[in-house]
């Protein structure tokens, strides 16, 4: 009798998460929330961490087995991250309790070791499948290669593929990011062996073999991080690919499948109406606390702007802008160099400033959130030409390599092929001499060959005589503090002549 009871009890337990019992097609259901690309805690987006928290609470209320996949793209860059290297995002996520966090490019904003440190702060696993660290002869310390979670009677295996471009874009010195095709097949097999019912792929960069894997149901569905601002041009959903973008950072999916055949998975994509979500009060408190601390640290006026100024992404990456000139000038002055170049990718504010705006430290940290250090090198005229060619090589795609300069005036034709776009270069009013040596002030990022500036990695470094090299933002802050009132101007340093 007791045995029967126990058996019954077990049955009752099992059916907690299943519907109709004994009918021909018993269906299992589970909710999945996918979020990514949320580096700013006080984002102007409709979706915020406070709303995400209440979405998760609702979902968990309905389904206690809700799977929360955080896709990454959030540890940097932001003003607060520039100070704590993304710790606050981990703290927030610890409150949101994700099942995992996938590693994407932005997680390397502060390099490998800081990411490992974050993994120890995180009360959830980090996963990346194609990351290899020669030091550990395996994955980066603190990062899992795959993840198998068992929830609501189903085992879901996760594979997360990091874009190989990260090594070049973020100048990773140590870790390698491998081509994932083999690894994916390997991991699928391993996860299946461990009893995975479903395989989920998280990725950001398309590969031609992903559709096949999805069609063959080797991968049941994919979660994708797009670097686009919104989802208007995305039409991959038919293949079970669910995408988040900068302005649509959260998706909520309902997964359902017949009890014994998870392969016949049905996915329902729930529209999220951020406006209908209330801010989660605990999360609001936590975020307010961070904002309060950030303001305390950064809301200090350092000067005033006398002219209007724009740092909109599209402008910064395609033409000379006033603030770019100001940064380059400050850099040139602070280092007594002949010329200065920065990549416009360091300018992240994406903001319109009115004339007479008060500039705070926060503005500068928001504009320059990467901790780029100042570097001074000697460069020949020929190398400088190559560097500028690289700078304008992808102007049509509005890439971060587009230069902002000081002490240099140049013209280019964007319709010419790469390598022959630059038409003329003047250095402080004199024609560039290919064999002459110039002293160039720039950032350590470019000197290490970042953003395609491989020419700069071949130049000779001049030492900076401080114990700790100043940051680009330090120099800009100092320049504004010294001048008090600034009026950066566009003055024809970079001219496109085929428009």
């Amino acid at each position, binding site marked *: 009798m007791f045995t029967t009871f126990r058996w019954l009890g077990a049955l009752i337990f099992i059916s907690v998460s299943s519907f109709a019992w004994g009918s021909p097609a018993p269906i299992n259901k589970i909710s999945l929330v996918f979020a990514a690309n949320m580096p700013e805690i006080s984002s102007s987006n409709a979706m915020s961490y406070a709303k995400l928290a209440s979405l998760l609470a609702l979902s968990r209320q309905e389904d206690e087995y809700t799977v929360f996949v955080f896709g990454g793209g959030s540890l940097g860059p932001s003003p607060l991250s520039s100070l704590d290297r993304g710790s*606050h995002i981990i703290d927030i996520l*610890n409150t949101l*309790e994700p099942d995992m966090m996938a590693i994407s490019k932005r997680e390397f904003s502060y390099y490998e070791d800081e990411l490992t*440190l974050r993994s120890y702060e*995180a009360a959830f696993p980090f996963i990346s499948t194609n990351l290899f660290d020669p030091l550990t002869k395996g994955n980066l310390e603190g990062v899992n290669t795959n993840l198998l979670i068992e929830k609501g009677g189903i085992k879901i295996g996760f594979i997360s593929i990091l874009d190989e471009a990260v090594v070049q874009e973020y100048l990773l010195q140590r870790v390698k990011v491998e081509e994932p095709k083999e690894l994916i097949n390997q991991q699928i097999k391993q996860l299946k062996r461990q009893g995975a019912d479903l395989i989920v792929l998280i990725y950001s960069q398309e590969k031609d073999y992903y559709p096949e894997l999805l069609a063959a149901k080797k991968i049941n569905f994919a979660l994708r991080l797009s670097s686009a601002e919104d989802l208007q041009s995305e039409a991959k959903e038919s293949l079970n690919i669910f995408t988040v973008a900068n302005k649509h950072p959260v998706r909520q999916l309902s997964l359902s499948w017949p009890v014994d055949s998870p392969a016949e998975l049905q996915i329902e994509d729930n529209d999220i109406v951020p406006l209908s979500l209330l801010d989660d009060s605990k999360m609001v408190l936590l975020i307010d606390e961070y904002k309060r601390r950030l303001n305390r640290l950064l809301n200090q006026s350092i000067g005033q702007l006398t002219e209007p100024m724009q740092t909109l992404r599209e402008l910064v990456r395609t033409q000379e802008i006033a603030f770019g000139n100001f940064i380059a000038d400050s850099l040139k002055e602070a280092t007594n160099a002949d010329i200065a170049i920065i990549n416009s990718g360091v300018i992240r504010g994406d903001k319109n400033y009115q004339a007479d705006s008060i500039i705070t430290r926060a503005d500068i940290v928001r504009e320059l959130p990467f901790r780029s250090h100042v570097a001074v090198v000697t460069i020949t005229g020929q190398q400088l030409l190559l560097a500028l060619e690289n700078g304008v090589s992808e102007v049509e795609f509005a890439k971060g390599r587009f230069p902002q300069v000081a002490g240099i005036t140049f013209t280019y034709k964007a319709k010419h092929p790469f390598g022959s776009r630059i038409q003329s270069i003047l250095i402080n009013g004199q024609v560039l001499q290919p064999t002459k040596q110039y002293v160039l002030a720039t950032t350590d990022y470019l000197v290490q060959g970042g953003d395609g500036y491989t020419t700069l990695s071949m130049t000779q470094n001049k030492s900076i005589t401080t114990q700790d090299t100043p940051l680009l933002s*330090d120099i800009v802050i100092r320049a504004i503090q010294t001048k008090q009132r600034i009026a950066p101007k566009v003055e024809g340093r970079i001219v496109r002549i085929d428009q």
Partner: protein
Amino acid sequence: MNAPQITKGNKKRISLNRIFSAAAVGILILFLLLAWLIYSSLISFKVLLNDVAEESLPNIVISSKLYGESSRLLEATEQLSKSSSEAAKRLAEQRISRYLSQLKRISEQNYHSEFLSIQLETINLEIADFTALIKESLILNQQISDKEKAIYRLFTLSLAFESDATNQTQSKDNYIWSMQLSKTLVSVSRGLNMNRLQEVRGLFRQFNNDLDLLRNYAKQEDNSSEKLKLTNNLAQLILHEDGLLPLKIKQLRIAGRVIGRENFVHNIIQDFARLLEYSAKETEAQITQKMAFTINRAETETSIIGLALVIGVIFLIVLILFIQKNIVSRLLVLNNLVKGKIKGEKVYSSLTGNDEITDLASSFMLFSDTIEQQNVKLEHMSLSDGLTNIANRRALDVRLLHDIELSVRKKSHVAVLLMDIDFFKLYNDNYGHAAGDECLKKIASVIKHSLKRSSDFVARYGGEEFACVLPDTELLGAAAIAEQLLHSIRDANVEHKFSKIGDSITLSIGVAVSGPERVLLPDQLLKQADKALYLAKSKGRNQYCISTNE
């Protein structure tokens, strides 16, 4: 008569006074420039040394001091984050507040920047927040440890049932609850050591199932009510708001936050130190720039001083040469001029230019000319001829008038002989003026000594002409004296190789007489004699002719 020989011409006047004034002013300016350059060089070096001593060096020292304090602060922060007891936390706090106040003191002393002091204040607040977080974490750990102890006490209590059970040799069904309890506690203990939230949540979801089982078993076994009570106690200990589960989850969150916050504090302290260093560096750069500027200036000034010295030396040499050439040597010329004048030589000055020395020379020439003119006047006023020491024309005029007037009274005769040296121009041309003068003297002396009577009078009539006035002499007497004069000249035998009528000097003589029968005025008488002389010359010289009254 000598005209002044100083050729002032149209030359622009270069006044020595001006030259000397200009030279003095130039030397003075040069000297002042040198003094000023050296002085200002010294002053700027002094300022630079002061700057280095008072700003740059202390800045470097302060910079390293701040670095030291900052790294000690970082260490203490790390110690704080790792403190596992109140005591350790307090010690770390004390260290931190000490380093903070030192940092504050140093930065207030040396950087009067509101920006930095606000940053320091922020660090202070951050550390205070961090300390509060550590405290929360410590309390949480204590709470978890208390709960763990309570669970172990509960387990110990449960063991009491088992010892009873062994004694009473009950059916093995009675062990099932205890066994399940042990399993449950093992997994709770595993959960406590986990560091992934979802895993903890998973384990505790399992715990819910375990509780159901425990409750079921407890109902079926002996001591059912105690076992149920213990099971509920356990559920309470773990699942209650203050239970082990929420505490563990909180602990995981706070542990992450502690590491994150430590990094944060670490970074803002580093940022602060870097800012301080950067401003120290700026001051240092300013000093270095100033130093470079001063050294540059000193180099320029040194070369200017050198140049000024060279110019000064050249200037002095030029001045000395100028004085030598234009003053000393010209003064010598002037001196020679004066000496020559004193000797009565005809001097031709080579003094040129237009200055005080030429003024002096002009004045001197003017002066000597005046003297010469006065000599001539004096000679005019005297009665004897300066060269031959016989009477001059003036004396002749006076004597002749006197003798004619006397002859009128005495009704006697006065004869005049007018003599001219033959070919005297050829003599002068060939023997020179000096020899000519000597010849004149000799002839004058011969004529003088040929006249026997004391009343006879001889005078130099002009250039090479002589005249004799013979009172109380008739024509015949006069002719005899003329004849005798010719004779005496011949005897004197003064060589004149260029004479066209012989090898020695000869005379031609014209004779005229004034007598009672026809008194002639001196002019008429001299005119008659001159006519007779002309006649003698035309008759072939070296003879006398007598004037024939018409």
